[in-house]
């Protein structure tokens, strides 16, 4: 009797557990076929009946994280979409966890997605060549007429791959050249001139080291030196760290840069910098950002682009650190700047989309209608932002809102940016606007970014060359070898045996192909 009872209760528990599990999964399992069916039928009719739109549910993906209030904002957005386009959008986020794997999975598995963030740094060119995205050329004029009209011709060019337009680029000319943020108050204290060239930077580093007894480039130094190297020599690296054009004006003069005289002079100079102690012995292995040491008063220089420099300066201000930070963009060496590719932030429609037409209509609204744009880019007015003194300015946080409870609304809205709708935050770093004014007259188009390289014929050489670069090139760049001449010779020899010539040949060929296509000499 007792035994059967025990057994029965065990059975009961087990079955309960199983039914519980089944209930958890059951909801979604039974949901998906239904919604899919609805989508399909909607699609069938949606194309035919133009004036009265059928109800459609779209699925959109963005990279990055959702905001805490995301569901509220999307609900608001869906209300508007339902009113105007009889559409609702299910907005999903990849989160930043291993997002590249996820992004590629979404596109390769053929999951039904109607719009996704696309970017040159998220393999846009590779994926479009592989046919992951839908060609929008014929759809755009009909379903996104406003966008079709207000995106400049050359921006469409940047998302054109093999004759098809595979994404809608953002329209917000941006300049993100690298530069140094540095302790401006110290420079004034030393009575040194503003940075103009390598010598003035060296003088500053020297003063920091000798007078302040501070290591100027503390922590990880490689990128700090490498970015200076590229901009000072005007090297335009193409696909990797070893091969590139020797200057912007000679794009077809593509060389193995470590073989050049400039490189030799550079590494010799860096050796003297290292000997003077401008960075640590562990500069290659350190995980600490040089910028963190500036904040603690133990560093003086840190590589940033203008907008991240702005973030850095704002942070220093917000923390009430008693220091003045300046920014020196490396573009002043050669007096020109390459704007960010329009394709670096874009929205694309995957091949698997069931409703590309409707999705484009939504994007057209989102980009160009300020009501839509403000909601999805800046959040709910009064909660996440408030109107500033004019139409172009906003206040964050909105009056009476605590940022600890309602963090600022910043999702990856980059793909639908449209300059006339963008707003400036009050109290931001004013240097940014000054830099924009400095940059726009000296802007030159990016002719190196879109060169498409998949390295298929030279995979082995690429891996070997990268290995050599990591092992010999990086220490050399930071002067961390005892004998520069000898290690330069070793580096060059090792590159040769790794097959760098074959790699060069491949890159030259692909680059020339692109230059021919675009008519660049």
């Amino acid at each position, binding site marked *: 009797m007792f035994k059967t009872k025990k057994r029965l209760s065990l059975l009961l528990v087990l079955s309960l*557990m*199983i039914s*519980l*599990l089944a209930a*958890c*999964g059951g*909801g*979604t*399992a039974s949901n*998906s*076929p239904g919604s899919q069916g609805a989508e399909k039928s909607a699609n069938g009719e949606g194309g035919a009946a133009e004036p009265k739109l059928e109800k459609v549910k779209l699925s959109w993906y963005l990279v*990055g*994280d*959702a905001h*805490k209030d995301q569901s509220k904002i999307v609900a608001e957005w869906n209300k508007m979409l339902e009113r105007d386009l009889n559409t609702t959008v299910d907005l*999903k*986020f990849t*989160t*930043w*966890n*291993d997002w590249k*794997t*996820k992004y590629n*999975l979404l596109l*390769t*598995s*053929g*999951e039904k997605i109607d719009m996704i963030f696309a970017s040159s*740094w998220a393999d846009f060119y590779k994926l479009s060549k592989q046919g992951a995205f839908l060609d929008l050329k014929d759809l755009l004029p009909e379903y996104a007429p406003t966008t079709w009209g207000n995106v400049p011709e050359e921006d469409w060019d940047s998302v054109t791959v093999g004759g098809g337009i595979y994404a809608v680029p953002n329209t917000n000319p941006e300049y*993100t050249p690298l530069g140094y943020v540095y302790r401006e108050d110290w420079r004034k204290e030393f009575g040194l001139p503003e940075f103009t060239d390598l010598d003035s930077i060296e003088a500053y580093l020297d003063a920091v080291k000798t007078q302040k007894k501070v290591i100027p480039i503390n922590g990880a130094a490689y990128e700090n030196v490498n970015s200076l190297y590229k901009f000072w020599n005007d090297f335009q690296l193409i696909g990797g760290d070893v091969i590139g054009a020797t200057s912007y004006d000679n794009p077809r003069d593509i060389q193995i840069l470590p073989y050049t005289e400039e490189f030799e002079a550079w590494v010799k100079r860096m050796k003297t910098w290292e000997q003077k102690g401008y960075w640590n012995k562990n500069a290659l292995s350190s995980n*600490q*950002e040089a910028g*963190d*040491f500036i*904040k*603690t008063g*133990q560093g003086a220089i840190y590589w*940033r*682009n203008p*907008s*991240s420099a*702005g*973030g850095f300066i*704002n*942070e220093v201000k*917000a923390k009430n650190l008693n220091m003045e930070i300046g920014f020196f963009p490396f573009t002043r060496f050669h007096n020109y700047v390459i704007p960010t590719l329009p394709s670096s932030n874009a929205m694309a429609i995957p091949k698997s989309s069931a409703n590309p037409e409707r999705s484009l209509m939504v994007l057209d609204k989102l980009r160009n209608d300020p009501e839509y744009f403000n909601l999805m880019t800046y959040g709910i007015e009064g909660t996440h932002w408030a109107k500033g003194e004019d139409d172009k300015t906003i206040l964050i946080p909105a009056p009476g809102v605590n*940022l*600890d409870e309602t*963090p*600022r609304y*910043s999702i*990856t809205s*980059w793909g639908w940016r449209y300059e006339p709708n963008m707003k400036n*935050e009050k109290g931001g770093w004013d240097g940014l606007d000054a830099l924009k004014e400095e940059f726009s007259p000296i802007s030159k188009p990016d002719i190196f970014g879109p060169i498409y390289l998949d390295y298929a014929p030279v995979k082995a050489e690429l891996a070997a060359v990268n290995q050599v670069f990591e092992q010999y090139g990086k220490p050399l760049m930071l002067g961390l070898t005892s004998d520069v001449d000898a290690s330069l010779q070793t580096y060059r020899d090792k590159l040769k045996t790794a097959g760098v010539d074959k790699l060069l040949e491949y890159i030259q060929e692909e680059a020339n192909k692109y230059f021919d296509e675009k008519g660049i000499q």
Partner: protein
Amino acid sequence: MNVQAEKWPVARKANKGSKIKEDKATIVFNVIGYTLLTVISLVCLIPFWLIVAGSFTDEMEIISEGFKLFPHTISFEAYKSVFTTPEQIYRAYGVTIGVTAAGSLLGLLLTSMAGYVLSRKDFMYRNNLSFFIYFTTLFSGGLIPWYIMMTKYLGLKDSYWALILPPLVSAWNIILMRNFMKSIPDSVIESAKIDGAGDFLIYRRIILPLSTPGLATIGLFLALGYWNDWFNANVFITSDNKYPLQFLLYKILSSAAVLRTQTGAYLAANVVPPAETLKMAVAVVATGPIILLYPFVQKYFVKGLTIGAVKG
């Protein structure tokens, strides 16, 4: 933790020794033993302490002076960042505990049944079937086909099943279980059969109690696997109320990491979360409950691993 398990027998011996007369050798042995074990357990504890202390240190202090056992300035910034949305953390705890409990129990049941069947010598195709299972450890379809299978054909996108099913049964565990059950003499099973027991009764009343050490081991593997799993959630879960703990914590870390990169500059956050201390705080939040739970569960593991010898 092993250190503690070793400590007990020594302590017991010492107690017994005090009743009889302690000779010099025993005292020397005890002194050496205690000091050695104290040192070793301290060595084991220091990393944990470093994590806890690090999570309460001021970020700036870590950058300028490195990690310290006893920080100068105590800061709760890292925990503030982790708990910006506390309800989400509690929810994630719930998901993780639920998935871990359900997954480990169900997994244990399936693994032990499979292991038992494969261990029975009177099961005709056991070698073929074993090979069939073993084969999957050598070859797999790869990530993309797996993903398509899970989402398109099984419809498991954004379902709790996507968290429970993939780690549920592993070939390695089945083989381990089979080998373990092989060590149970056939005569035990035969005698039960003679007494009129059916296969399920034998499995439940004879095999399972005799394989508690194996069950404890595999249960531990499964539970740890579920507790630490974030990849399945990363790939399959889209709604944030289904995020398990590890995924959520990883998300907090990677958002903080992105904010420090060039891409993060667009995100226009004026307050960058403290990256170094945040890592430590996340580790504390993730392992804390397990460490607190361990002393209570430990005795079952020790018992399960030591008894279970076949007695006639």
